[in-house]
């Protein structure tokens, strides 16, 4: 989780990722940031994020992103 938070802070340090639960719904992560985030998450956690995973529910908060990463890692095993 800390590694994910570091990635998020690196992309846009203006958001409070521990508290915010509507990162996508409120437009706090734009499309370019989102694409950068997906790429960095794939490299850091060895997962493949497909268009099916790209829904607001998976990216609205750091917790939701971490749950998605864990699910994708479990599916890879």
């Amino acid at each position: 989780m800390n590694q994910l938070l570091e990635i998020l802070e690196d992309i846009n340090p203006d958001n409070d990722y521990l508290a915010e639960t509507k990162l996508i719904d409120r437009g706090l992560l734009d499309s370019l940031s989102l694409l950068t985030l997906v790429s960095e998450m794939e490299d850091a956690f060895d997962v493949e994020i497909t268009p099916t995973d790209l829904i607001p529910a998976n990216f609205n908060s750091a917790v939701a992103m971490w749950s998605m990463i864990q699910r994708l890692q479990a599916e890879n095993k």
Partner: protein
Amino acid sequence: MQYNSLLYLLVFLPVVLLLYQLLPQRHRWKILLGASYVFFFLLSRKLIVYLLLSTVCMHYIGLWLERCDRVLAGQKDAQNYHALKTAADRKRRRILWLGILWQLGTLLLLKYFNFFSHNADALLAKLSLPAFLPTLKMAVPVGISFFTLQAISYMVDVYKKKMPTDENLGRLALYMAFFPAIMEGPICRYGETAMSLYEGKPLTYQNMSFGIQRMIWGLFKKVVLADRLSPLVVLIFTKYTQYSGVTVLLGAICYTLQLYADFSGCIDISIGAAEMFGVRLPENFRQPFFSRTASEFWRRWHITLGAWFKDYIFYPLSLTKGIKRLGKKARLKFGRHIGPVVQTIIPLLAVWLSNGVWHGAGWNYIFFGLYYFVLILTGNLLEPLLAKTYTTLHVNRNGVFLRVVQTLKMAVIIVTGELFFNAHGLKAGFLMLRSIFTNFSLTVFRDGSLLQLGLSAKDFAVVFIGCLIMLAVSIIHEKGVHIRQSVAQWHTVPRWCFYYAAILLVLIFGAYGSGYTPVDPLYANF
């Protein structure tokens, strides 16, 4: 029967509201569905078959996808589960593509076949080859560009398991055909609107009051502003060669205002009508002329179309393996800003080509799409450079000066885009643009020819005051004030004076009756 017609406002809508309220809650959706099909039939007659086929197609695709999931779930304990899952995923993808091809195929055939055949035959003629593609006589059902996108979003969302399949064909049919939104949108998502349509909430004073107010505001924009500007716009865009550059520029500015007042006005009427039934339709406009960049403009103008393209074209394409690989290479080579921008080039191109083509079968629409593609891509590429420049020059990015400059820049960009959008062909668009720079003369304001463009001095005065009212309302909305909620808290006398004044404003200054030609909603043609 248009949304601004007396038949719709004084007969159709009140009858539907009455029947809706009289029926028990569980049957109310049937009234909405019946009314929607009657409305569609009155507009498109036998072409209603396309809407029915589209609905049945998406219904069965949803059921088929669900059956695949059920079968796979029953095999969870099988030893070869991973192989079964891979096969099921492949099958689900094929089912989805079948549905998309059906929906898009119908749209492409009805709206774009003749455009394709004309251009293919013209190309063959240039190569001295015989033309062989026929011109088909096909009528296009109203709203097909809108309900096709709604059908595709439902199927994709079910495929993505964003929501379960809806086995209720009636509920799906209502989502597709809901009469306030069938002509011009807003483009709804199943997950956001279908349940509230089906719920059959009772009519309430607040919903009725807020809905009527929203409709009056929409009527003001449509009937007082947009329809009044129509004769001038039609004249200048049809006979642009006879006018000076200033007149052409005036025509482009007036068309931009007309399109906004017409489209957003009709959307207000749609949202207001839905609100009376307790249904919240998505917003389609958010003060677009306050935008500071092209991408911001498209987040404020025709919001539901932009969001659709982002969710169903931009992101899926950006996350394909090839594009992701390209993005990674670009990030290594060009850094963390330019890299992602490079990754978006192909998806952005696809989005803006689709946007242009969606609006109509014509090269000027394709140019319109590519125009915004270039503007947005350039804006993304130059962003770090701009940020650095502002920092070096100590310019406050949120300061009033920069905000005004950027808004004016966007006004020029928007008017230029709309000039091509409404021009009678791409060549006409370029000729009109050229005449603004080469045939610039202010005599139109001195020799009285301004009043020979289809608008009298009174018309110009009404348009000017109407635009000021629209600007004032936009500023209030931009500040986050909800006008209807504020007015609802006023004392009874001033509140009702306000309501009556709004109605009288539309009745007195509306461009309807003798001397005016009724103007169909502009976006119903797209």
